[in-house]
């Protein structure tokens, strides 16, 4: 594990009577890419702004590189920031925008110009130096904003939903570019987003937030496959939730819609008669029986969505329904609505959700 | 940030002083008519002066006709431009800017030369005709404001999309005009109307050069000859202007908001 570079300790932020961020503790290693993921209003942007210095925490500290910066102004923290609305200075050319931080720091002209040229080639816009922001597309402006933030070689890079204002295709290509630039420069990065696909594909670790609190911190794999709370399970990826009643706690049998399955390993202290929420990812469920899948439920096909390479099928199992994905096969036609079907899964893939 | 706030308060304070002191001074001056004590004598004299009543009444009537003419000229045009002929927009907007570029005195000078007694359209040949010309002149002066008010109103409610939606749903023109255009335009028209009223009531140049018995020339005359009454008149004029602007502010709260703009 890399040494801790950014340390957020016990931060709390309240606006009057409303507490927007609570008990936020995080250690970020040097060169790490961490995402703050959550729905609108969960406090992720506020937390980022506290790290940047635009908001003062009601309690707690922020340490960058071992130094306590909690009381420092934003322009004293040696950070770079990229905003959702690009925020390029409209009266300056692309080159002047990128060189802004260097000019403010008093870097000699020749050195600054060389650095600007270097940044322009990193963001793959080498001919754009003399253009003005209004002449650029959204994606190009955001790349320039990134170059501008990185030009003065800051210690920390903060990105506040930088891709939310862009078209879907640009979003995908730009996030790959951002990640590769970040890897190349090795700069410690915090990335705020509400898009879980972005967080999952880009981050070393993800901090899932909800209602001002941290729900879970972990790698994308951990967050997706081992969600700690019901919120994380629901927010990240699609989830099928089945309701099951414990029919016999001792033998570990749970009844789901008339069928009983044995999930002894997953019952922690649940008693007979308890109602549990059992969750399954769509990819864990198979259509039909499969070797290795030790639980089977039967039902009827309710919807079939042909999505190209994937066919999403919704199967009604009496009281509940599950969505599962199966791959398109040119040889075999997709299932028909109304067909009887069986679904199978491994008991080990079941998640028992609390609360 | 606190230093900035102090400066902001100081600036605001000085500005407020500059703007309120003359108003207070005028009020104070207008009450000095009776020696030794404050009274509303000046107001009593002014309001009782039959020339005041005559010229004020004249200006009010002229204002009403000006508003009507303005509405007739502006509303169909604004609607048509939005709906059918957006390519004419730049020309129309340029024309509505002209009264702000060409001073009123030049406009009325042009009228005097063009519509004198020996021209094909002898407006100035009779008193009635001159009244009509004055109304036309005021409508011209108010054109920029009236057009902007109506145009903004139509744009906010996206009249084009509404009309198309209504047509697809089967509405005829009468329904469209009555149910869609008019209600939304009414507030904007009223705003333009009150602005026109404020402009007409105090206007001096055109009325004076066309020799009409309007409120503006009366004000100037009083100022040249009397001491305290002009101050009283200034207070009254300010109160009227303030009243018109307040009505416009209140009206704007009832203005239909764009459906896509979130209500705040």
């Amino acid at each position, binding site marked *: 594990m890399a040494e801790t570079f950014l340390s957020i300790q016990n931060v709390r932020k309240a606006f009057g009577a409303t507490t927007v961020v609570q008990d936020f503790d995080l250690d970020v290693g040097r060169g790490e890419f961490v995402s703050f993921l959550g729905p609108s209003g969960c406090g992720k942007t506020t937390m980022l702004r506290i790290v940047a210095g635009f908001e003062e925490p009601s309690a707690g500290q922020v340490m960058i590189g071992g130094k306590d910066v909690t009381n420092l102004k934003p322009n004293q923290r040696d950070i770079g920031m990229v905003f959702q609305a690009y925020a390029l200075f409209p*009266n300056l050319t692309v080159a002047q925008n990128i060189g802004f931080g260097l000019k*403010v720091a008093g870097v000699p002209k020749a050195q600054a110009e060389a650095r600007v040229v270097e940044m322009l080639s990193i963001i793959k816009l080498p001919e754009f130096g003399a253009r003005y922001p209004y002449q650029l597309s959204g994606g190009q402006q955001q790349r320039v904003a990134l170059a501008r933030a990185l030009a003065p070689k800051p210690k920390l890079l903060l990105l506040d939903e930088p891709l939310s204002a862009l078209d879907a295709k640009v979003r995908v290509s730009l996030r790959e570019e951002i990640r590769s630039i970040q890897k190349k420069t090795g700069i410690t990065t915090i990335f705020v987003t509400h898009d879980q696909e972005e967080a999952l594909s880009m981050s070393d670790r993800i901090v899932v937030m909800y209602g001002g609190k941290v729900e879970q911190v972990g790698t994308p794999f951990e967050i997706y496959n081992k969600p700690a709370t019901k919120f994380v399970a629901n927010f990240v990826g699609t989830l099928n939730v089945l309701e099951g009643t414990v029919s016999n706690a001792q033998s570990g049998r749970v009844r789901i819609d008339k069928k009983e399955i044995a999930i002894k390993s997953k019952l922690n202290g649940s008693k007979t008669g308890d109602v549990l929420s059992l969750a399954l990812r769509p990819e864990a469920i198979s259509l039909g029986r499969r070797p290795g899948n030790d639980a089977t439920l039967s039902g009827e096909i309710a919807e079939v969505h042909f999505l190209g390479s994937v066919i999403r099928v919704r199967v009604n199992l009496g009281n509940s329904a599950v969505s599962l994905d199966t791959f398109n096969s040119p040889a075999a036609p997709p299932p028909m609505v109304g067909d009887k079907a069986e679904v199978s899964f491994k008991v080990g893939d079941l998640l028992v959700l609390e609360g | 940030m606190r230093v900035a706030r102090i400066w902001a308060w100081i600036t605001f304070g000085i500005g407020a002083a500059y703007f309120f002191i003359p108003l207070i001074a*005028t009020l104070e001056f207008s009450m000095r008519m009776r020696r030794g004590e404050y009274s509303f004598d000046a107001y009593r004299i002014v309001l009782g002066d039959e020339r005041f009543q005559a010229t004020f009444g004249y200006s009010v009537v002229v204002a009403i006709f000006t508003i009507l003419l303005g509405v007739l000229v502006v509303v169909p045009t604004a609607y048509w431009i939005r709906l059918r002929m957006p390519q004419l927009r730049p020309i129309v907007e340029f024309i509505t800017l002209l009264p702000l570029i060409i001073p009123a005195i030049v406009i009325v000078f042009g009228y005097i030369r063009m519509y004198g007694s020996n021209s094909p359209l002898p407006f100035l040949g009779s008193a009635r005709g001159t009244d009509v010309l004055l109304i036309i002149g005021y409508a011209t002066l108010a054109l920029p404001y009236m057009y902007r008010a109506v145009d903004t109103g139509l744009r906010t409610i996206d009249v084009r999309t509404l009309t198309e939606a209504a047509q697809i749903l089967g509405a005829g023109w009468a329904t469209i005009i009555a149910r869609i255009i008019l209600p939304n335009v009414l507030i904007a028209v009223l705003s333009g109307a009150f602005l026109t009223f404020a402009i007409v009531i105090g206007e001096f140049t055109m009325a004076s050069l066309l020799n009409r018995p309007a409120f503006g020339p009366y004000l100037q005359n009083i100022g040249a000859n009397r001491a305290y009454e002009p101050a009283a008149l200034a207070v009254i004029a300010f109160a009227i202007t303030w009243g018109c602007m307040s009505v416009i502010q209140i009206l704007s709260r009832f203005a239909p908001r764009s459906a896509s703009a979130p209500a705040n």
Partner: protein
Amino acid sequence: MTDISVSGSIRQSTPRAGQRVRLPTQWLGVAPFFIFALMFLILPTTYLILGAFQNDAGEFTLENIAALSRPSIVNAYWISIRISFTSAILGALVGLAIAIAIVRGGLPPWVRSATMTFSGVASNFAGVPLAFAFLATLGRLGLVTVLLNTLAGFNIYSTGFNILSFWGLTLTYLYFQIPLMVVIITPAIDGLKREWGEAAATLGATQFQYWRMVAIPVLWPSFLGTVVLLFANAFGAIATAYALTGSSLNIVPILLYAQIRGDVLHNPHLGYALAFGMIFITGLANVLYLWFRTRSERWLK
């Protein structure tokens, strides 16, 4: 099959007939406006402009324009330009300060709405009543004059100040110039996005550096454009001047007024030339204003 071809041919002929009928009715809607503008705005002005270049015999001549070089007329233009320029610059600077104060000064929200409302009123309070108001304030018997005299023993008139003068008129003009500036420039200051200031801060800039390198340059075209607009506004104004200083302060509109009333210049065509001069100057000012405005709008798209 036959049906389709028949309806197909009908479909082909009807649109053309429809097109021929549609054009006139479209123009009918905007005709009143254009006729009105033509008769009462464009033609009268053109008439004057043409008249400025004609003599009594109707021939083209430049002697009217040349006659504008008469000292009294040049003087009038010069005074007009000076008053307009001074009231425009002062009005713009004070208006800018007030606008920044209410938008960025961290003042309570009622300050901004009250100021905007009042500015809307004050910018329309020009004309004769404004002159009365300032006479009541700073005239020989005005409240401020009297108060300064009785409370501070300071008689401003003894310093040579007089409300009926160049500076008195300029001071009076500021009453509608400043609000006009506030009303026009406030949206531009609103347009200074908060993120720009934040981005500048993360790049290490102080508030001063941000304003110097970003905010002021962004506001500059709007500011200049509004100065020019204020200039044109003051140049064409007559009522306030007439009511305040009578004909003692010889600005161009007053000269034109006297000329229209009584041909004081003994040459009717000179009146046209005067009017043309006014249109030329205010027209030029407005072209400049539009140029500045398009430039700033282009940046801030």
